[in-house]
């Protein structure tokens, strides 16, 4: 009889101690933020263009995490939609035409002779890719420009145009192979042969 009491006591003590440890840990090691939002945000192209109807990529990531549609991102195009569908385990759908068309990669170009130095495009640029000061000529930092179009509209003298980025040996890449019967539908030859994704 005594051994039964010992057994109950020992288990109870163990469970209490472990419960206390876990309770302490859940408060001490609490993580802020929703990791799924971070993962979605990582997939989005970070153009901060607002074409989805949200003020930037992070707010759209939060909206997706709360159940918004995944097909509102024209700069990312079908590749982003497919990656999102993969992450969230839903069916990929075509890009919503209401929010814009997927187009070739572009960057902004300022015709500097016509620029009057009004700084309006600097304020519009979500990624601070335009360099210049009041009454000074502005120019675009090509490496930083995400091609979001947002600077074209505010320019009072219409001196900003969008130039498509030329394909060079550094930016060109193989097209994904077409899938055919007997192979996985995502077009990869073996399961880990994924391209275009961060490891």
């Amino acid at each position, binding site marked *: 009889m005594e*051994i039964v009491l*010992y*057994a109950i006591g*020992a*288990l109870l003590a*163990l*469970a209490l101690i*472990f419960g206390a*440890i*876990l309770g302490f*840990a*859940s408060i001490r*090691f*609490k*993580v802020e933020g929703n990791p799924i939002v971070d993962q979605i945000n990582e997939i989005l192209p970070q153009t901060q263009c607002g074409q989805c109807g949200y003020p930037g990529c992070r707010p759209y990531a939060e909206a997706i995490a709360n159940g918004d549609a995944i097909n509102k991102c024209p700069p990312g195009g079908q590749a982003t939609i497919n990656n999102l569908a993969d992450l969230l385990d839903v069916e990929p759908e075509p890009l919503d035409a209401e929010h814009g068309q997927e187009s070739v990669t572009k960057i902004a170009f300022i015709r500097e002779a016509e620029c009057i130095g009004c700084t309006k495009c600097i304020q519009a640029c979500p990624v601070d890719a335009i360099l210049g000061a009041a009454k000074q000529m502005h120019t675009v930092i090509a490496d930083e420009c995400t091609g979001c179009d947002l600077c074209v509209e505010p320019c009072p003298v219409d001196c900003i145009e969008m130039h498509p980025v030329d394909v060079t040996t550094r930016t060109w890449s193989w097209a994904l192979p077409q899938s055919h019967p*007997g*192979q*996985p539908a995502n077009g990869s*030859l*073996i*399961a*880990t042969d994924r391209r275009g994704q961060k490891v």
Partner: protein
Amino acid sequence: MSELILILVSAILVNNFVLVQFLGLCPFMGVSNKLESAMGMSMATTFVLTLASICSYLTYKYILLPLNLEFLKTISFILVIAVVVQFTEMVVRKTSPLLHKVLGVFLPLITTNCAVLGVALLNTNRMDSSLVDSATYGFGAAAGFSLVLVLFSAMRERIAAADVPTPFRGAAIGMISAGLMSLAFMGFTGLIRL
């Protein structure tokens, strides 16, 4: 020292947990479709198994044995393992997001891996074992599990691209290859006797 090496070789090859003792078959079949996830699973299992075998050894030696409560070992080991895994997951998530990204998905899965409980219970059967012995045994078991899992997932990736006859596609060919691997591991029997 040679004793520890013997324990390691015995746990990894001769008494391999998956292919010889048939423990932990669920993750062996389930997580071996991709090499990438097999690696993650192996690392997480190695981590948890080593930790769990140390913790359950301490529980057994310093709580259950002095009170003559050996019959409680199964239930208390389950408790210990669940707590250790949960606690590690919280700490890892807080301290190292990168490590959590690699291991995170697999940690809760391992709680229910019977190899973990198997190692803890088998450790108590070997009466003269010390703490270091138990830890080595746990690590060896995990290393054996990792070895087989990675080998098997590499094989399955090849099989996925191969022209398998229709009735054998999918799980069937997986089972057959696992059986062949098990036969191969039987070749190690008699290499060491502990």
